[in-house]
Structure formats: structure tokens, C-alpha cells
């Protein structure tokens, strides 16, 4: 029991301490009752039966259903992370450009992708190419379409079949994740570079460096230290968002755990949900732990005077603007 005064509470005296202990007892009882009611309801519906939980102890289930799903999740997350970082750096720097014809379009693109739900972006990649590719194939862009699919997009599994392009769920998910998180990372990069104290760039200019050199040699290296925790936080968000692939039947972890296992094993949806949730939480908490460690380390290493961008989250949404402590958006 802390004896320090906080913003909300004064140092507790003996009466306050007694009252707190009473509250503790009452709350514990209430929570226990609610918990018991929940357990009873589960028991009543037969959710504690062995057969509903045992699939998760069998290795075959893990080997054939769950681990492949987890692998697919990590695959999509890894590819999307790399692409999103590229997108973020390119567009973040573009938004910092002195030329309005670079800055403004970049801004429009970034705000557009941030303002639309991620699921719509995924749908966009999943449904649109399939529907419009026949029309394009017959038009003057047909050749371009065929070549780009054969030589570039095929890496992601996109296929072209007599002019009709099919985009697999993996590619659609990666597209959506890249565009959305790339836009958020663009804002992180922009905020990171802007947070470097002005004195740094002023000193760099004054020794004769030009914009390119200032950015490359002075600002970006410091900005990276500043941005690391925020970037890792965004990766956590990205990982969670791979679960949206469920809706277009991408075989990621949620799909495997929540649809395939129950389908094969007596519809143990609740149990599957709990197991899947535990694994997601474990992975994400570890990543967040890495982010916090990075933040603490960079605060100690003092490679830059700028304050690290907190793990609290990305810059505020479009239009909100004011640079406050923010919260993750998804």
C-alpha cells in the first residue's frame, strides 16, 4: 500500500486505510461471485467436457492445423512489416519534402489510407482485380497487366488466367496491412524526424550539408532511435490485424484455431477461442515488452537529445493533429 500522495489521492490516514481494506474484501467477494456464475454457466452447457479441450493437447492438431495457421500469420505479418516500413519511410520523407508537388500528393495518399478501414482495403485487393481484370485485359493496358502479374505480383501468389487475375487471400491481406500500417508508419517517421531538436538540423546546415545530407546523416539516424518503440508498437497492431484475414478465409491462425478446429472437433468454439487468445496475447505482450525495453534503453543510451516517441501509439488520426500522448488505433 503506497504511502505517497498522488494526484488523485492524499496520503491515506488510518481511517482511509481501513476503508480500503474493506473495499478490497468486498470487491474480492463480488469478483468471486461473478466468476463462479460464469463457471457454473459453462459447466451447465457442458463446456468442461474432456472432448472439447483434448484436441489442444494432441500434437496432430497442432502440427496440421494450428501451427500452419500460426506460420501463415507470421508470414503475412513479416512480409507486410517489411513493405510497410518501406512505404512508411518513403512517404514519411516525402511529406517532409520542401517541394509541394511531392509533399501534398504524399499527404493525400497517407491520409486516404489512414481514413479508410483496413478491412475495406483488404476487400479492395481481394475483389476488385478479379472483377476488372477481364476488361483491362482487352484494353490497351492488357499487356501491362499480364507482364506486371507474371513478373512482379506472382511473388505474392497472384495468378493470371486468360486475362482474369485472381488475388489470393494472402496477397490481399498483405496489401491491406502494408497500405494501412505503411501510412501510420509514414506519420511516425514524420513525427520522429520533426521531434529532433531544431538545433541539430541548424548545426548540420551551418557546416555546409544540404537537405539530403542533413536528412541522411544527422536527422534520420537520430530519428530511428526515437521511433523504435513506436515502430515496434505498430508491429504489434499489424500482427493483430492479420486476424482480419479470417473474413476472407485466409488460413491464418485465427481461422485455423477458431474455424477449422471446431469444425473437426465437436464445435469447441469457446475453448478454441480461449487457446487462440492466450497465444495471441503471449506473442503480443512479448513484442510490447521488447518495445518498452527499447524505450528504456534508448533513454539511457542518449544517442539523441530528442525524447523517444512513447509506446503509447501512433500519431493522432487525420485532422486531430495536436501532438498529445496517444493510444493505439486498432
Amino acid at each position: 500500500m503506497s504511502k505517497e500522495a498522488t494526484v488523485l489521492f492524499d496520503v491515506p490516514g488510518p481511517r482511509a486505510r481501513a476503508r480500503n481494506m474493506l473495499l478490497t474484501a468486498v470487491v474480492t467477494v463480488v469478483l468471486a461471485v461473478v466468476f463462479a456464475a460464469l463457471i457454473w454457466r459453462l459447466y451447465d452447457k457442458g463446456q468442461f467436457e474432456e472432448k472439447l479441450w483434448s484436441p489442444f493437447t494432441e500434437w496432430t492438431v497442432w502440427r496440421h492445423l494450428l501451427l500452419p495457421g500460426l506460420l501463415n500469420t507470421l508470414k503475412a505479418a513479416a512480409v507486410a512489416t517489411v513493405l510497410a516500413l518501406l512505404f512508411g519511410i518513403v512517404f514519411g520523407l516525402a511529406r517532409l519534402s520542401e517541394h509541394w508537388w511531392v509533399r501534398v500528393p504524399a499527404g493525400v495518399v497517407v491520409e486516404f489510407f489512414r481514413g479508410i478501414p483496413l478491412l475495406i482495403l483488404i476487400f479492395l485487393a481481394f475483389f476488385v482485380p478479379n472483377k476488372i481484370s477481364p476488361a483491362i485485359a482487352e484494353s490497351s493496358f492488357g499487356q501491362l497487366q499480364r507482364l506486371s502479374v507474371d513478373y512482379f505480383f506472382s511473388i505474392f501468389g497472384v495468378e493470371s488466367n486468360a486475362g482474369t487475375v485472381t488475388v489470393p487471400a494472402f496477397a490481399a491481406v498483405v496489401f491491406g496491412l502494408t497500405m494501412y500500417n505503411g501510412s501510420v508508419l509514414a506519420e511516425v517517421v514524420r513525427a520522429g524526424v520533426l521531434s529532433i531538436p531544431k538545433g541539430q538540423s541548424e548545426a548540420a546546415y551551418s557546416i555546409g550539408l544540404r537537405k539530403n545530407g542533413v536528412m541522411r546523416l544527422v536527422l534520420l539516424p537520430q530519428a530511428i532511435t526515437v521511433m523504435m518503440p513506436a515502430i515496434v508498437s505498430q508491429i504489434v497492431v499489424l500482427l493483430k490485424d492479420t486476424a482480419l484475414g479470417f473474413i476472407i478465409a485466409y488460413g491464418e491462425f485465427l481461422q485455423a484455431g477458431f474455424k477449422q478446429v471446431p469444425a473437426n472437433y465437436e464445435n469447441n468454439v469457446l475453448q478454441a477461442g480461449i487457446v487462440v487468445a492466450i497465444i495471441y496475447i503471449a506473442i503480443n505482450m512479448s513484442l510490447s515488452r521488447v518495445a518498452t525495453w527499447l524505450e528504456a534503453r534508448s533513454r539511457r543510451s542518449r544517442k539523441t537529445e530528442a525524447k523517444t516517441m512513447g509506446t503509447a501509439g501512433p500519431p493522432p488520426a487525420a485532422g486531430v493533429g495536436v501532438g498529445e500522448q496517444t493510444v493505439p488505433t486498432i
Partner: protein
Amino acid sequence: MFDFSPFFDNFDEIMQGFWATLRLAAAAAVLSLIIGTALASFRVAPVPVLRAFGTGYVNIVRNTPLTLVLLMCSLGLNDILALKFSDTSSTTYYWWAVLGLSAYTGAFVCETLRSGINTVPLGQAEAARSIGLTFTQSLRVIILPQAFRAIIAPLGSVFIAMIKNTTVAAAASYAEVALVTKTIVDKPTFANGVIPLFLGVAIGFLILTLPTGYFFGWLAKRMAVAR
């Protein structure tokens, strides 16, 4: 390819989808504020059990995909445990979507409120106590007003994210605009109007999110406490 007529043929459906989105967002906004305030008060309470409960809740929710939360609501709680809200499936799906989205967003509202309280310097509380304000008076007159003004911008971000997150309710079979889009595109008669369709949906969301963002930004600037 840029034929807009299929878009307008299905306009009613699309509008219904947006209406469903709005209903969900509005209800979830109110409920998540309530849940978030309660959670924040738990996390700052002088009772360790409440603090642990609040922290546990937030950590679990923040690290779980919203898709999973909503699926648990619709498939797990609704189907398996048979906790239903009403007999009509659409109403039930609506309320489960509201509950799931609010339970999820509430965790982020809680964190925003907590960070707001942390922006208030301890000296303000000390000064309030030293002129004889009681506990409730200090909170009501000095601490909470300042905390509230600090969180307007971050709260705006949370709400914009929630508006976009309503689309995830498609996983829970709630007929908001993403699910409607998917249904329209899957129709065999629907051939060419994909681009206008998505353009329309995108613009619809921008209409929802951009003004909200500017409003919260403006409000935050107006109410900012100069230090």
C-alpha cells in the same frame, strides 16, 4: 469499368449498410466511454484488487485481435452459451457487436483517461489540498477538469479508430457496410461497378472520419490548458 450505374442501383443497400455502421458506432461510443471510465477508475483506485482487475482486463484486450473478441461474442457467447439478447437474429447480432466493440474500445478509452490524469502535475493537487479543498472538491474543481481537457485529442483518435473498427463486425455477421459490400460484390449479376462501389464506400468512410478528426482537433486546441 467506371460505370456508376450499378453503384446507384444498389444505393439503398449501401446506405442501409452505412446506417448500420452509424448505429453501431454511436452505441459503442457511449458504452465504451462508460466502460472506459469505470476501468480507469479501477486502475487508479487505492484498492489493489480493483487495480489488478483493471490492469488485467486492459492487457488482455489490448493484445487480442478485435476479430477474435467479436467472434467470441457471436459464436461463443451467443451460440454456445446461448446468452441471447432477443429472438430476432439481427437485433442479437447488433447488441453483440455493440458489446464486443465497446468492451474492446473501452480498454483504449481507459488508457487515454489514465494518461490524461497523469498530465496533471502533482503540484496542482497539492495546491488544491493546501487551501482546504476536500477530496471530492479537489477532483471536481481542479484535477478532473484539467485531465479531461488533456484527453480530447487522444480520445478523438480512439473514436475514429472505433468508427473504422465497426467493419470488423462483419465477422460477427452484423450487416454493416463492409459485409454489405461483400454481399453486393458476390452477386452474380454484379459485373462492372466494383471501382465505383469501393470509391463510394471509401468516400463514405472519409466523410465519417475526417470531420470527426478535425472537430476533435479544433476542440482540443480550444480547450487546451496553457502551462
